[in-house]
Each structure stands twice: as structure tokens, then as C-alpha cells.
């Protein structure tokens, strides 16, 4: 199961829980499972977040694979200039 870590203010919306163990094959399924585990997160996840898997940032690809030992971070939506 991948360990999914939340950025600080997101963890506030998850009743202070900073880390979740989630068994999901890809980002899309992981975000769905995370929303079910912490329903208050659902609106924020729906608005869009950036997901880091093993240090690589994914802003779009919801079907990027997650390995059981992957390091996963949920980060704010990002944009550049």
C-alpha cells in the first residue's frame, strides 16, 4: 500500500491526519479512495491538486501508475509563468 502524504492545510481538512495508506493502482483511484477516507477533502480534490509520485510532479495524468512502495504527496494545484 502506498503512503499518501498531505500538505499541511489539507491535513487540517482530514481531521489532522497527515498520512494515509492507500491501495490504488493509479492517481485517479488513489484520489477517489482518499476522498472516501476523508470526505471533507473531496471539494479540494475536485478543484484540482498536484500529485507527486516518487518525486515527479503530475498535474494532469490521472492514470499514472502508483507502486505499492511509492512515495506519494498531495500538493496544491500549481501553475507557472
Amino acid at each position, binding site marked *: 500500500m502506498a503512503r499518501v*502524504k498531505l*500538505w*499541511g*492545510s489539507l491535513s*487540517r*481538512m482530514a481531521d489532522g491526519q497527515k498520512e494515509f495508506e492507500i491501495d490504488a493502482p493509479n492517481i485517479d483511484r488513489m484520489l477517489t479512495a482518499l476522498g472516501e477516507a476523508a470526505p471533507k477533502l473531496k471539494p479540494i480534490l475536485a478543484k484540482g491538486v498536484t500529485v*507527486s509520485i*516518487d*518525486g*515527479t*510532479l*503530475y*498535474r*494532469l*495524468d490521472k492514470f*499514472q501508475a502508483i507502486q505499492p512502495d511509492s*512515495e506519494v*504527496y498531495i*500538493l*496544491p*494545484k*500549481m*501553475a*507557472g*509563468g
Partner: protein
Amino acid sequence: MPLDRDPADRTYKVVGHRHNRPDGIDKVTGRAKFGADLAAPGLLHGRILRSPHAHARIKSIDTSKALALEGVKAIVTAADFPDHPQVLEDGELTNIRYNVMAREKALYDGHAVAAVAASNPRIAAKALKLIEVDYEVLPHVVDVELAMKDDAPILHDHIRTEGMEDAPDCPTNVAERIELGYGDVEAGFAEADVVIERQFRTGAAHQGYIEPHACLANISGDGSGDLWCCTQGQFMVRDVCAQLNGMDVSKLRVTPSEIGGGFGGKTTVFIEPVAVALSRKAGKPVKIVMNRGEVFRATGPTASSAIWVKMGCKRDGTITAAQAELKYQGGAFPGSPVSMGAMTAFACYQPKTLKAIGWDVVTNRPKQAAYRAPGAPMAAFAVESIVEELAHTIGMDPVDFRLKNAATSGSKSAYGPTYSDIGLVETLEAVKAHPNYAIKLGPNQGRGVASGFWFNFGGQTAVTLNLNIDGTVALSVGTPDIGGSRASMCAMAAEELGIPYHHVQTIIADTGSLGFNDVTDGSRVTFASGLATIEAARNAAKVLCERAAKIWGIPADAVTWENGCAVPAGPNAGEFPPMTIKELAKKAGETGGPIAGHFEVSADGAGPSFATHLVDAEVDRETGRITILRYLIVQDAGKAVSPAYVEGQMQGGAVQGIGWALNEEYIYNDKGVMENPGFLDYRVPVASDLPMIDTQIVEVPNPGHPYGVRGVGETSIVPPLGAVANAVAAAVGARPEELPMSPPRLLKLMKEQAQPLAAE
């Protein structure tokens, strides 16, 4: 898309060499067409009426007198951008609609309230004076900290603070609170031998692109049409304009002109949806060109900020705690880049404990737009100022102090994830070894160092490559060229196909000719469009091999592509002389038809880029003038596809950062009206202000790109604010806490604090 192989084993024939840019001659001879150069038969001229008030309720708009003026063909107001479901479902799109045309309230000085299309510019200007707007002037706020107060004038009744469970259910200007960090910072400060904290402020800086926004819309009677404009993203313009005007996206084709600078400021729309609405209403082509005053008052500068930073370190230099509170105002709508500021603030280092809090605040200023590494430069200014001061306080060389704490490959980033291969240490070591670091300074001169980080992004990208009958190549990309990217695309296609650089011609395609592309932002183009170009060329090479196999009567997998020719893969494939790309192109019709390659991707894996800047500055103690004596940039480019244009990006970012540090800021009077909306009073650096900006490229390959490319366009603006401030602090013996360090501000600082800092 992983790195192809160990870069040390690869020799590039085209990539990494210096080539003339394909758009160079047109740009220096005036042949290139920019937004304002476009024309059409029967053209009408559009002008926009703007609010003279910082905050005012629009009680009524009477356009009857203006409409009666001979030569006026159409007038639009907010009523011409009605509620479409696709707009209402998207909060950001709703804000863009409000920003391009004020609705119930004008939210800043310069906010558009109506627009006119007339047969010539003089009639359009006259018509604007005949539009009667009944305003109820409201209290305003333009300062980020004042806007956060309980008794501040409220811009939007619907805003509640996101990111706070206990936020009161009442209107506020604080749109969001974000927080990140790890460990116990109080324990970290307790462990420190030295703790320093300071409060910093930065002004709002505009991107200052030389070309004002310009567009020409031509909507036909059947509701379909064309839009030509200068933009960083024609597909974004198409989608937003179509949605705001209730059009099917397929009905609008957008063609990007050449672009006279963007720097993030042209990643959104301002006049384009208005031109479409006017053209549709008038049934004629409508052109709108902003003047410089409009660009300043009504397009997006970056956020201004108030940033508190506290850091502690041990005598050996180890940073034990880092804490920051960042307040960014992003103008009249939510969306300041404060979260990016919070994430990047300490990204160069590995503090043992960290806490960063960010506040996104709305004020009566124009809606901020992206500006090169949005949110990062002001955070880096604050943090790098403290880092330098910590180093001096413990008596450690500032580069060594940074090396002691530097983020490294495999270390945890300050914002969470583990870094893959990164090159900060290499930039610091290069600065330390550079001759500039050993030059002896004179009186009133100071030296400053600062490092900076930017994430870099990928994004949706589509590329098509077509082989011409003579073996040359037409490459279509969908990302406007804002920094020499066409040269890099030509180089990568040529590298893959084994043909000369000048045999590839790259165009920026319109929205009807290519799949969707995200805007040119996030330093993404050389990475993402480059990656797609490489894959499109490889796909074309595969087709070329299949055609050769067909001619030779052998299996396709028995042919490989080498040095611009199809060759048998090995002795068992048979003995055939190499078949050149020119020969295969000539036979395309006989062997199956046109030869092309294309590639579509949501590109991820853009590796972050780090840079370290070294500045020597001299202060005139009588006038407060600061002269930049020497400036060195060392930056990790992963793999520099076009070294000259990488250096150009590095120099351009540094110069914009120097302007932000020394002179550039929005100045408002007590009515909330901008007082310096022109280049005479909003002073950007010019060539005579600057020394040659020295550059040194470091190449630590990005494992997420076939050649190891990293974006380079944004990182270069992150360190200059801090580097210049550190040089000035060393020169005058007082630490600047507010940017820009304009002469009056520096004179005041020297008068109040002019004595050597503790250890500087």
C-alpha cells in the same frame, strides 16, 4: 519519457550547438508580424472604457449617446457576457469574465466597464466619453495587510477563507490560508545557536513585456470566426473566448502572432473576449490594441507581498528551524501565487524543522497574472536575506553555508517529495570557483549571493512533423515561441532525423491545425514540446524505415535509421546501400503516401532547476543610486539544447529581477489610483543600467527527458531580488527589508541604520 542513456556516452551533432534562430531575420528587419500589425478589410477599431475608481458600484451604464454617434458600430458591456452554464460551473472562468468586463462593481482603477467598436480610433475614443456610467464610489484597499483587517472594505461578499475549518462565516478579503511543514519548529529554534527574524515587503512588479496586448477578431454572420492575437497560448484563448461568448469551441480559430514578450503575463485573456463580442455584434472585424497605460492598469502584474521569516542555525552552520508567514495580494480576485511562494521559500535547503503559512488576499488592484516563477522571487528574497545574515553572523562563507544546507539529489524537498537528480550543489561550487568571487571590492561596494529554485512543468502537448518532397521537414508546434524555442525544436528534430538544422522549419500552428496545447508557461516548452518533437521525429523515422523496407523487400524491423538514412539493421537483412531521407521523401507517393510523425502527450517529469547568482553592487551614499558592477548566473539546464538561448533566458530573468529589486513597483495614491502607469515612471532596467550579465550553464541531466532537458525560463528570476539585496546590505551595513530599493528608500535606510551589521 525517461533519459535515453548515460549522457556521457552520447555525442550530439545538432543539439547543444549554437545556431541562428529561425525567426531572427524577420524580427530584426521588421518583417515579423506582431499583434498590432494585423489588419483586415472593413476593420473597426475597438476601445475600452475603464473605471477611474478603485472600488465602485456600477449603478447604471447609459450607452445611448455613444451608440448614436456616427461611425459607432457596436458597444458591449457585461450584459453581453451572460450566464452560460460552462462559465458558472468554473470559478476561475467566472472570475476571468468579471475581470474582462466589470459587472455589479468596478474592482480596481482601470477595470473595463464597456467597449466600443467604431470606424476609426478617434470616433471610438469620442464614443467612450459619451458613455455615461453612474458610479457609487466605495471605500477601497490596496495594501495586503490592511486588506486582511476585520474592518477592511470588502471586495466580494461570497469569499470565505478556505483552508481554515474555524474560519468565520462572514465576508472577508482573505481567500485562502495554506500551511506546510514538518517537525517541531520551536524545538528547532531551541536547538539553534543563532536565530534571526525579519519582516520583508515587496512591491507589485509588472512583467513589462515590450509588446502591449493586441488582437483582431473577425466573427462571421454564421457565428464562426477567427481571432489573431499575441498570446502565450492560442488554445487557452480559443477555449476561454468561446465559453465566455457562448460559442462552440469549434467555431473559433485562434492564430497566435509573434509575441513581444510574455513572461507569464499573456497566459490569460483581457481584450480578446471583448473583441470577439464586438465583432459578433458589429458583423465586422474588430481590432483592439492596448496602450501602455492600459497594460499597467488593467493587466496582471504579480502579487505584492509582506513576508515574515525566522531561521535558526547552529555554529557549524546547520539550519535547525525555518519558519515563514507569507501574505500575498493577487489583486481583485483570489489566486495569488502564495502557495508557490510557501513551497519554494526553503526549497534550496534542508532545514531540520519547517513551518510555512501563506495567505491569499484580494485587494482593489488588477487581477494578478503569472510572472516567471510565480510567487517564488519574493519568498526567495526574504529567505536568502536571512540565510546570508545567518552565514555572516556565525562567521561562515555564505556559499559554504548554503553548501552545508543545500538540497541534494535524493534529499527531501522542503515542500515534501524527494528530489531526484538536481544540480544546486553544482551551481554553488561553480560560483565559489568563479573569478568574480575573488575580486577585491572597493569602498561602498558589496557582494551578495542567493540561490533559487523552480519546479518546472510539462503539460498537454501535441506536435506534428511532415516530410517535404525534398527531404526537408515542416514541424508544427502549438506553444508560442517566447524565448527562442523554435530553434530548439528545429535542433531536436534535426538531431533525431540526422539532417542539418536548417532543413527543419518550425511554425507555431493555429488552433485548427493541431491538437490542444497548454499555454507556454512553467518553463515547459523546451521540455514538453521538445519531448513531443523527439517522439514525433522518431515516429517519422519509423515510417521512413518501413518505406525503405518495402522498397528493399525486407521486413520493416530489419531496417534502422542512422545519420539521416535508412540502413539494413544487420548483415542478415541483406546488402542495400543506405537510402537517404531525400530519396525516401521523393518516393513517398509511390510507397504509401505522405510521410509524417506526430505525438500527443500530457508531459510530466519536468525536473526542477536551481540557480545561484553572485552580484557586486556599489552604492552612492549621496543619491541612493545603486550600480550593479558585476553579475554572474550559474544555472542547471539539464541539457542546454540551444546554449545561446538558455543564456538569454538566464540573463533576461536576472535583469527583470534586478528591476524588481531596484526600481519597479506599482504606486497608488490615496484614492487607489495607480500613479505610475508608464515606462517613464515605472522604471525597468535598460541596457545602460547594467553590466554584461555573465552566465555559466551547469548540466545535471533531468531523468524525465530523453536528452535530460530541464526548463530554464523561470528559475533565473528567483535569486536576483535576494542577491542584490545581499550585495546592498554588505555595501551599506544595513539590511534592506523592502523592495524595490529605490533611492529614497535606500537613503532612508542608510540614515536610520547606517552602521555595520553585526558581522557583515
